[in-house]
C-alpha cells in the first residue's frame, strides 16, 4: 500500500488556480466518492482550505494512483490538465508521510505555527471517515499526524508568540494587565485596522468599547458592532482616563492624542497602567507618552518589531519541530511496511492450518477408536509443529523483505507459490 499526496498550496499555485480547484463543503462527499472511484485508490481524504487543496490517498500502485488523481482533479473541476499540472505537487511514500505530518503541525503554513490548519485537517478527516472513504491505512496515518502535531505543540514553543500585529497587541496587553478581562477599550478612528485590533482584544476578554471618530456617524456604526458607545471627537480627551487600552488609527496628518492629556488622565486614574496602540501613519499619539510611568505606547513599527522577533523565535522552534516530524515519519513507515506483509503471513498461516486440520481429521477418522487420548494429542501436536517449522522461514523472509523496494514482487511470489488469493481483492484486516 502506497500513501500519496496530490495537491497545491499557496506555495505552488496562485490564488486564481486555488480558487478553481477548491472543494466546496457541500460537494465534499461527492468528491470523496470520485477519489475512491480512481481504480488504484483504496482510501482518500480531501483537505480544502483557502491556502491549500490536497488529496491524501492510500493506493495500490504509485503511478496509477497519481495519474488517476491528476485526472480526477482536472475532470472534477473542469480545469484543463495542462493548466493544472504545473501547479500540482506530488508526494509518495516517505515524502508523503513527512508532508502530511508537516502540514498538520503547521510547518508548511504561510504563518508557521498557526493553529487553524490542524483543525482543518481534522475536519477533512472526519468528513472522509463519515463517508467511509478512509480505511486502516489513512485512519492510522491521520491519527498519527494529529498526535505528531500535538507533540510539536507541546514540545516546542512554535505557536507561543504572536506573529500578527493585532495578536502582538493582545500579547503585550496580557504582559501588562495579566488578564484582559473587563478592560475598557477606546478606539480612535473607525478604520479597518482599529476594528481588527479591537476585535482581538474583545475576543480575549476586553469590555466596554467606546469609539470616537471625526465623523460621529461612523463612530456610532462601529460602536454598534462592538455593542459599545460612541464618543464625540472633541470630548474624548476628557474621558481618556476611563480607558485601559487605547487604539488609534485616524487619517489625521497631526497628533490626535496629546501627552498632557495622558499625563492628566494617569493622575485621574490613580496611575493604573495604560496601554496605547498607535497604528496610524503618520502617528496619532505623541511618542513622548511612552516616557510617562505606567504608560506603554506602541506604534506600528514597534509592533512590527515584536512580530519580527516572534517570527525569529518561531523559526528556531520550527527546527526542533522538524526533528520531531522526522523521527515520527520513521516510526510510521515501519508500521506501514509491516502492514504490507502481515496479511500475506496471516493468509499463509491460515492456509497451512486449514490443510493441517483437514489431513488430521482424515487420519483420526481412519484410526477410529484405536487411539488413546494421549496419542491423539501427540498427533495433533506433531502436525502443528510441522506447520510451524515449515512456515518459520517464509515468514521471516517476508518480514526481512519489508524494507526491500521490490517487496511487491516477493509478496506476489509467495502468494503464487502457495496459491493464496490476490492481496488486493479485499481490505486488509
Amino acid at each position, binding site marked *: 500500500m502506497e500513501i500519496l499526496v496530490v495537491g497545491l498550496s499557496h506555495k505552488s499555485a496562485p490564488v486564481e488556480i486555488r480558487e478553481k480547484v477548491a472543494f466546496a463543503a457541500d460537494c465534499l462527499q461527492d468528491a470523496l466518492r470520485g477519489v475512491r472511484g480512481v481504480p488504484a485508490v483504496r482510501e482518500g481524504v480531501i483537505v480544502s482550505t483557502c491556502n491549500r487543496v490536497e488529496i491524501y490517498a492510500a493506493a495500490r500502485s504509485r503511478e496509477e494512483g497519481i495519474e488517476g488523481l491528476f485526472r480526477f482533479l482536472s475532470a472534477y473541476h473542469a480545469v484543463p490538465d495542462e493548466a493544472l499540472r504545473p501547479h500540482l505537487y506530488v508526494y509518495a511514500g516517505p515524502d508523503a508521510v513527512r508532508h502530511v505530518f508537516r502540514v498538520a503541525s503547521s510547518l508548511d503554513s504561510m504563518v508557521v505555527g498557526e493553529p487553524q490548519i490542524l483543525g482543518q485537517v481534522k475536519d477533512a478527516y472526519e468528513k472522509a471517515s463519515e463517508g467511509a472513504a478512509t480505511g486502516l491505512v489513512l485512519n492510522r496515518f491521520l491519527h498519527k499526524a494529529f498526535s505528531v502535531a500535538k507533540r510539536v505543540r507541546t514540545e516546542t*514553543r512554535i505557536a*507561543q*508568540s504572536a506573529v500578527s500585529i493585532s495578536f502582538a497587541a493582545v500579547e*503585550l496587553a*496580557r*504582559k*501588562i*494587565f*495579566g*488578564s484582559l478581562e473587563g478592560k475598557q477599550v477606546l478606539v480612535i478612528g473607525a478604520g479597518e485596522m482599529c476594528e481588527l485590533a479591537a476585535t482581538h482584544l474583545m475576543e480575549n476578554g476586553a469590555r466596554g468599547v467606546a469609539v470616537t471618530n471625526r465623523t460621529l456617524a461612523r463612530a456610532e456604526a462601529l460602536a454598534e458592532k462592538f455593542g459599545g458607545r460612541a464618543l464625540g471627537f472633541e470630548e474624548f480627551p476628557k474621558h481618556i482616563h476611563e480607558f485601559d487600552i487605547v487604539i488609534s488609527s485616524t487619517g489625521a496628518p497631526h497628533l490626535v492624542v496629546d501627552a498632557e492629556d495622558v499625563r492628566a488622565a494617569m493622575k485621574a*486614574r*490613580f*496611575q*493604573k*497602567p495604560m496601554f496605547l496602540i498607535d497604528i496610524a501613519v503618520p502617528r496619532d499619539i505623541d511618542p513622548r507618552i*511612552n516616557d510617562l*510611568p*505606567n504608560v*506603554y505606547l*506602541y506604534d506600528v513599527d*514597534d509592533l512590527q*518589531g*515584536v512580530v519580527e*522577533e516572534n517570527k525569529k523565535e518561531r523559526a528556531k522552534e520550527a527546527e526542533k519541530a522538524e526533528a520531531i516530524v522526522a523521527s515520527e515519519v520513521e516510526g510510521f513507515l515501519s508500521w506501514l511496511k509491516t502492514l504490507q506483509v502481515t496479511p500475506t503471513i496471516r493468509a499463509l498461516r491460515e492456509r497451512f492450518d486449514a490443510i493441517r486440520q483437514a489431513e488430521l481429521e482424515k487420519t483420526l477418522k481412519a484410526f477410529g477408536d484405536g487411539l488413546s487420548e494421549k496419542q491423539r494429542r501427540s498427533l495433533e501436536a506433531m502436525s502443528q509443529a510441522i506447520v510451524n517449522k515449515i512456515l518459520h522461514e517464509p515468514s521471516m523472509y517476508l518480514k526481512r523483505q519489508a524494507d526491500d523496494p521490490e517487496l511487491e514482487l516477493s509478496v506476489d511470489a509467495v502468494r503464487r507459490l502457495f496459491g493464496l488469493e490476490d492481496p488486493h481483492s479485499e481490505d486488509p484486516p
Partner: protein
Amino acid sequence: MNVGILKIAVAVYLVATGLHLAYVVALKQAVRRWAAWATWGAFGLHTLGILVRFVEAGYTPITSLHEAMSFFAWCVVGLYLVLQVRFDLPSFGAFVSPIALSFVLAAVSLPSQIEPLPPALDSYWLPIHVMLIFVGDGAFALAAAAGVMYLIQERQLKNKKRMGKLFHRLPNLEVLDQVNYMCLTIGFPLLTVGIITGAVWAQQAWGTYWSWDPKETWSLITWFLYAALLHGRLTVGWRGRRAAIWALIGFASVLFTFLGVNFVLPKVFPSLESLHIYYTG
C-alpha cells in the same frame, strides 16, 4: 545534629536554585515541577533542622548570627511557598531562591555551636519580637524580588526594540505589582508590631523603651520608608516602577538594619556600637 540537617537542606536548596535557574533558560514545565518539589523538600528539611535545634538548645534558636541567618532564609522560603500557591508566578523562584540560598550558605559557614542563652535574651519576648520582625523582613525580601522582576519586565515593555528572551519568561506586570503590594501589607504591620514589642522588651531589659541605639534608629528609618510607600500607594497611586524601586530601597534598609548596623557601622563610626549584638559564640 541540627546543623547536619541544615547542611543537607542547604544541598537541596542548591539543587532547587539550580533547577529554578534552569527553568528560566529552558522553560520546560517538567523542570519547573522539579524545582518546586526541591524547594518544598529543602524547606521541610530546614524546618526540621530548626525544630531539632530548638529542642537541643532549649530556647528559640534566633540568637546567634548563624541562627538568625538560617531563620531569615526559612521565613523567605516559607512566604515564597505561600505566594506560589496563591499566585502562579513563573520564574519567581529563580529570583527568590538565590536570596534564600545565600543566607543559608552564610549560616552554615558561621560558628554554630549551641551556647547557653545570655541573660539579656532570656525572655518570652525573644521569640515574639524576633519572629515578628523576621517574618516581616521575609515579606520585604519577596517584595524586593518581585520588584526586580517588575523592573526587568517593564524595561522590556518600554524598550520595544529589544524584546528580550526574558519577556516570555517573566510574569505580567499586574501580578508582579500585586505581589509587591501584598508583601507590603504583610510586612508592614509585622514590622510595626515587631518594633513595639521590641520597645516593650527594651523597657523590661534595659529600663527604657527607646534608646536611639543604631539598630532601633535604622529600624525606624526602615519603618518610615515602608510607611511612605504604603501611603503613596493608597493615596496617590504609587505603583508599578515607583513601587518596585521603593521596595528595593526598603529592603536595602532592612538588610542594613539586620547586618550593616552590626558589621559596617561600628567600623565606620566606632562610637556607634549597637546594644543589639549577635551572640557569635
